[in-house]
């Protein structure tokens, strides 16, 4: 696969010139999603067509009569972004092969289809359409920006919300405290479709993320990229700490970085370093304490919650290490 090495300065210059994703969108300060979008655009090898599921990114970037998108962009509904992507890719392929627009200098048909969905649109309501597209082998780059709740509708729990987190539908009550379940193993579910490439990315690690997005574009077939995305509003974190939190998620192994090429799991970047040197693995408290959604877990009577969280992280990390051959 790709031997591409991103030159950040060069890419930044190009981005300033072409501005594929304009500033002036209405995403919150400190939101992780726009960073991910810009990284996808920088890693693109061809022009891209963007499909967006309903969610924060969609509503905050396309408020009529404005748009933040300097690339073709389509939003249909919440649960069908992958199916829309399949339709676009089928049309592109057909029209390209039929040389339909060969004599029209105003039309470009050599592009990649990117589908962007939140955790709700991916873990939950959109799972069927993604599974269908992956089973068919449709060449779409599906990017999940995971802010771990339904943020657009006001911070309700999703299948991607972590254990213990306070959301508006998993409030910290006197009997039940926060979310009871753990996060759905979404990458494993996608990898089980035998797709050629899947990866996790944290925007805090630019190089790692850009290389993975590029590999995703170059893969022959459907690709799934799980991008971690801080949400200051939903998580109760400081806007200025977005990158720090995204880093800590990796350093605590709450969100390890890895890729899966044709079923082969491979740790990357700091996660690989931790695998080689386990002393570097930080305790989950360091990550959790920066977010109000976990605040109750630090009360003495809820110490068991921190322990359970840590146990889960350790267990998942062990599983991943095994899968990656450690």
């Amino acid at each position, binding site marked *: 696969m790709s031997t591409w090495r991103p030159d950040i300065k060069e890419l930044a210059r190009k981005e300033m010139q072409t501005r594929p994703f304009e500033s002036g969108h209405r995403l919150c300060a400190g939101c992780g999603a726009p960073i991910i979008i810009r990284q996808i655009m920088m890693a693109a090898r061809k*022009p*891209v*067509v963007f*499909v967006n599921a309903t969610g924060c990114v*969609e*509503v905050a970037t*396309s*408020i*009529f*009569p404005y*748009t933040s*998108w*300097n*690339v*073709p*962009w*389509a*939003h*249909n*509904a919440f*649960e*069908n972004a*992958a*199916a*829309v*992507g*399949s*339709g*676009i890719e*089928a*049309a*592109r*392929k*057909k*029209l390209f092969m*039929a040389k*339909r*627009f060969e004599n*029209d*200098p*105003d*039309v*470009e048909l050599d*592009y990649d289809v990117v589908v962007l969905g939140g955790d709700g649109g991916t873990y939950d309501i959109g799972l*069927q*359409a993604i*599974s*269908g597209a992956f*089973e*068919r082998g*449709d060449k779409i780059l599906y990017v999940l920006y995971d802010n771990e709740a339904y943020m657009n509708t006001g911070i309700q729990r999703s299948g991607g919300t972590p254990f213990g987190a306070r959301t508006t539908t998993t409030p910290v009550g006197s009997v039940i405290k926060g979310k009871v379940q753990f996060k759905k193993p979404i990458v494993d579910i996608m990898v089980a479709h035998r797709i050629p490439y899947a990866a996790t990315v944290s925007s805090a690690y630019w190089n790692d993320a850009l290389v993975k997005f590029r590999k995703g574009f170059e893969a022959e077939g459907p690709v799934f990229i799980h991008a971690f995305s801080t949400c200051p509003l939903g998580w109760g974190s400081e806007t200025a700490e977005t990158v720090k939190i995204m880093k800590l998620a990796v350093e605590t192994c709450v969100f390890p970085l890895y890729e899966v090429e044709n079923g082969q799991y491979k740790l990357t970047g700091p996660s690989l370093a931790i695998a080689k040197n386990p002393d570097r693995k930080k305790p989950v408290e360091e990550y959790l304490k920066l977010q109000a959604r976990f605040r109750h877990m630090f009360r003495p009577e809820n110490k068991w919650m921190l322990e359970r969280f840590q146990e889960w992280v350790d267990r998942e990390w062990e599983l991943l290490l095994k899968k990656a051959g450690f």
Partner: protein
Amino acid sequence: MCMAILKKVEQTMMALNGDEAVAWAVKQSNVDVVSAYPITPQTIIVERISEFVNNGEMDAEFIHVESEHSALSAAWGAALAGARAFTATAANGLALMWEILYITASTRTPVVMAVVNRALSAPINIHNDHSDTMGARDSGWIQIYSEDAQEAYDNTIMAFRIAEESLFPVMVTLDGFTISHTLQNVSVLPDDVVSEFVGVRRIPRIKLPRIHGDKEIPLMLNPKYPITFGPLDLYDYYFEHKVQQNEAMKETFPIIERVHREFGEISGRSYDPVFMVPYRTEDADVVILGLSSTMSVVRKIVDDLRSEGKKVGAIRLRVFRPFPADHLRKELSEFHAVGVLDRCISFGGEGGPLFTEVRSALYGLPSRPIVHDYIYGLGGRDLPHSLIRKIYEELLSARAEPEVPVVRYVGVRE
């Protein structure tokens, strides 16, 4: 039922059921992308199309989606990317698409969909009524109801032109089993004639001054001239957009008419008038107005009653959306009574959807007929000749002050 043969063109007579007739039309219409999910009684359409594609007889991408929701979503994406896109469904499949029906229409995306009318669950029932497409009547799709397999074939071909020239999605309906699964002689046009009639999908050009200046750009997903499709539209614009959409729908009347006229010229099958087809109405006192295959039986009863000296007629509505209210006012105002056949129930409503619409269209007229509603045939229930006769007899003796209730169920056991 076509009204006149304009000229003889060389056509092949094929024994096809309604589903196969639709599949043939799709095969000949330069369709680029088909996405579909099976449901009885539509299944044969996607089976035949799959055969055409797999045998190399049809050069289209077939997306085997995992649900009807995705079927329409993929067709939408394909159409937005510049392709001619087709899908087909029925009943529960159409219900699962409900959300995307509105989105397809409101983004003015010219998808063509065959809907093989079938009753909606529960209880589950595979047979014909119109509860599915009537449920979708407000979603912004043009709806053309076919009377037989020939019309299903013709309507499907015309639908591609109508959709692409009007930028509205078009639903071509055919009655489940009655049309979809019964063999009929269908005149099939030569491939090249259909191909030339529909052409390849042409992409309209628009100006987006604030983004692309004075340049006329193709209205499609295209990196050369990016467009944002399906944005968020709040209270400052949404209402205007909806009113514009409704006005645009009314402007489809001449487009629908022109495409039918041009189709008549190549096929020899003239659908004139396009929106409602009258039968022996010139001197009729009373008429039955209805949709689809039932109306061929009603015409037979009209003939019987005429031979007995009764002044009866029939009118078949072909296009239900946009609703041809003006045509209807002109056509219906002079009758003594009109019986509307509704193959659909509107729970808790004052009559079926066709009835309420017809009555509403006539209400403002200085002189208007008595209008009765006859709800019939739910879940595939037969409408025997005797009951159609009974309806005509009731209409002939209907008093000027309409009895209450004006809504009856025909063919239901008490």
